């Protein structure tokens, strides 16, 4: 029987998802043996044109990482969608925009303005030089792609079959997904989140939780936390209650609060909204003014509650006039 065909691709990402795949260590050789890897730009020779020539739906599994932030990313997303039976949004950026999606808190104009004119190390000549899509040079014309105004998740551009969360997904979960697929068991329903749990990060966190009666929040550098107690109980904003399990609660285990990279838990529409409701229920106050005073101690709720999920949230971006 022919081996199943596997493709891996990176759009706008940092490369961490690719590293995570390699971090299955020596098992990477098993992956190479079990699949016919037809497209993996980071690790293998490939012909881009060959992907175009492939029959539609001829790739059995495509793991797509990175967010979509220019027309080239979108073009490859459409191409791989057409050629793949199962298209997987792999990692936070493909799933929900990820950290590059925080750019939706600002605008393209503000970004260009700072980088090429406002930055203290940049030399500004003639009112500023900005990158152009087309530049005439003495020898001819050269081009660079245009940056999009808004960062998007993969499923805002094409239909996605499965989602593997994480920034990056942890290697044992990646291996678990691969093993499952190789076992030949029926695939889960389309739209499923795979390679993760069905509860919250708190459920796999070893720290002890008590009834929360918070009167004050602290920032992580301000206090030394007790090693075995829930960080949220100690007043550190931890995204655990609003985040899916599956990573092994790595950050709380290293005495740092969760920042939500495993995405929203099952049956939740919006990670930030979930976090707000989780916090409201643990604050020890009844008067609206008092609740507001306590919540005001949380610096940057937008950049914290939507650290990874802004582009895919109900907010999507901040509109600036």
């Amino acid at each position: 029987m022919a081996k199943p065909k596997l493709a891996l691709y990176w759009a706008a990402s940092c490369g961490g998802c690719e590293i995570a795949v390699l971090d299955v260590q020596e098992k990477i050789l098993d992956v190479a043996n079990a699949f016919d890897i037809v497209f993996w730009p980071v690790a293998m020779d490939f012909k881009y044109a060959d992907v175009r020539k492939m029959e539609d739906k001829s790739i059995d599994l495509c793991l797509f990482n990175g967010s979509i932030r220019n027309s080239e990313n979108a073009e490859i997303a459409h191409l791989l969608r057409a050629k793949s039976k199962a298209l997987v949004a792999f990692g936070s950026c493909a799933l929900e925009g990820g950290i590059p999606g925080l750019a939706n808190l600002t605008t393209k104009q503000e970004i260009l303005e700072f980088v090429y004119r406002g930055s203290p190390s940049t030399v500004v000549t003639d009112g500023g030089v900005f990158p152009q899509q087309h530049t005439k040079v003495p020898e001819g014309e050269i081009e660079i792609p245009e940056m999009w105004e808004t960062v998007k998740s993969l499923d805002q551009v094409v239909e996605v079959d499965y989602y593997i969360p994480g920034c990056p997904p942890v290697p044992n979960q990646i291996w678990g997904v691969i093993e499952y697929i190789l076992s030949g068991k029926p695939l889960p329903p389309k739209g499923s989140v795979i390679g993760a749990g069905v509860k919250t990060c708190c459920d796999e966190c070893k720290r002890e939780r008590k009834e929360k009666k918070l009167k004050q929040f602290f920032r992580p550098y301000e206090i030394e936390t007790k090693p075995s107690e829930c960080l949220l109980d100690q007043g550190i904003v931890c995204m655990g209650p609003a985040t899916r399990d599956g990573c092994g609660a790595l950050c709380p285990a290293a005495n740092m609060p969760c920042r939500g990279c495993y995405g929203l838990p099952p049956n939740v529409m919006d990670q930030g909204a979930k976090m707000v409701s989780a916090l409201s229920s643990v604050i020890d106050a009844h008067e609206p003014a008092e609740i507001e005073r306590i919540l005001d101690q949380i610096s940057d709720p937008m950049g914290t509650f939507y650290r990874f999920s802004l582009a895919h949230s109900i907010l999507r971006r901040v509109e600036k006039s």
Partner: protein
Amino acid sequence: MKQIKIDPITRLEGHGKIDIFLDDNGEVANTYFQIPELRGFEQFCVGRPVEELPRITTRICGVCPEAHHMASVKACDAVFHVDPPPTAKKLRQLLYNTFYAGDHTTHFYALGGPDFVVGPDAPAAERNILGVVKKVGLEIGGKVIEMRKRTQEVIKTIGGKQTHQVTSLPGGISKGLTEEERKQIEEHCRWFVEFGKFTIQIFEDVVLKNKAYVDLILSDTYAHKTYYMGLVDEKNRVNFYDGRVRVVDPEGKEFVKYAPHEYLDNVAEHVEPWTYLKFPFLKKVGWKGFVDGKESGVYCATPLSRLNAADAMPTPLAQAEYERMYSTLGGKPVHARLATHWARIIELLSGAEMALDLARDPEITGTCIRAIPKEKPTEGVGIVEAPRGTLTHHYVTDEKGILKKVNLIVGTTNNYAPIAMSIHKAAKGLIKKGSQVTDGVLNMIEMAFRAYDPCFGCATHALPGRMPLVVRIRDKNGEVLEEIKRL
């Protein structure tokens, strides 16, 4: 005018693209090395709490998140005017030196090494890690995988996650080391040192004993006389994590030595309209274009630059190899860019030795790992040496520590002008009138910039050690006369 495009299509964003223009005589008229990406971290980090940046800026690069984690937390320490306890600093350095040993291993065996070990004109299909294994023996492949695995384990133990570390925060580190963990790490570090020695030996046997390779390293095609930059400790020895930035001129004389907060007096960035990346240069010399020499502000920040900018290595085995390199290549500074590969494995060994020293340091299991910041946050600069160059994070906050301004000069960016110049020189030297642009010629051009281990959004961290290239030679009307694919 003919136009040759070298478009590494491993990655459509974050990759580099090279355009080579030929004049009507078929000689190279000009080359352009473009970076088509801008993600805007500097702007979208504004408004974030400063202590979150060591956890956000890691996502600039998933291959070297350790470098951003460290530069960022050092900037945070400076913003809060806090000095972390010795154990915290040592834990950060243990993580960081381990990272260096691992990262340089990947480059040497998978990226840069194949050109030498397998040969610069070997068939493309063999110029990769598998070709290295074939030439040097199967055992080596296993060792490289094991080196990676062990370095990742140490990084995860100290950093909390193996990719995108989380534990460093203003004033220290969130998690200490138990004696049991220390013992395990010490064993790994002993292994790193042996691996470093083994790598030096491979370089000796395969490269240095082959006169053709040594001649290639020293050939003028791959030489540029520029300024060199690197962090040094108080004895002017190479230091990856801390110290002052020292710059030497093309003759090797100290030009300046500056503290992180003085970077704006020394480094500035030039903008060109045809690329998203800026070109840093030495402010006191000035931007004179893409030219070599003492009058040009172009500087280089690579493993070789760090060795050129320092007086010595901080550890004994690396020091011996450092001396041997300079005596073999004719003294300091070395301008031959391909010698960067040699410098890189000297740093690999040094990182391994440093990590072992730290793993054996009695203070490393200390329990005082945090200094709680008490002063009002203001402004701070953090500098580390990323494997690919001096990395500067500069933050300005309001009185609550919310970011008002973020300026970053990232490792590879320092080398943007030198890389562009190396490509230009190699193309000019290798593409001649009437000659065929073969795969071998392409690879020789690519070798000019692979020496820098450029990391434009990690584009070139392709495992086979080379980027797929498409070269199109076009006539004036844009019609393709010839197409060469190295995919």
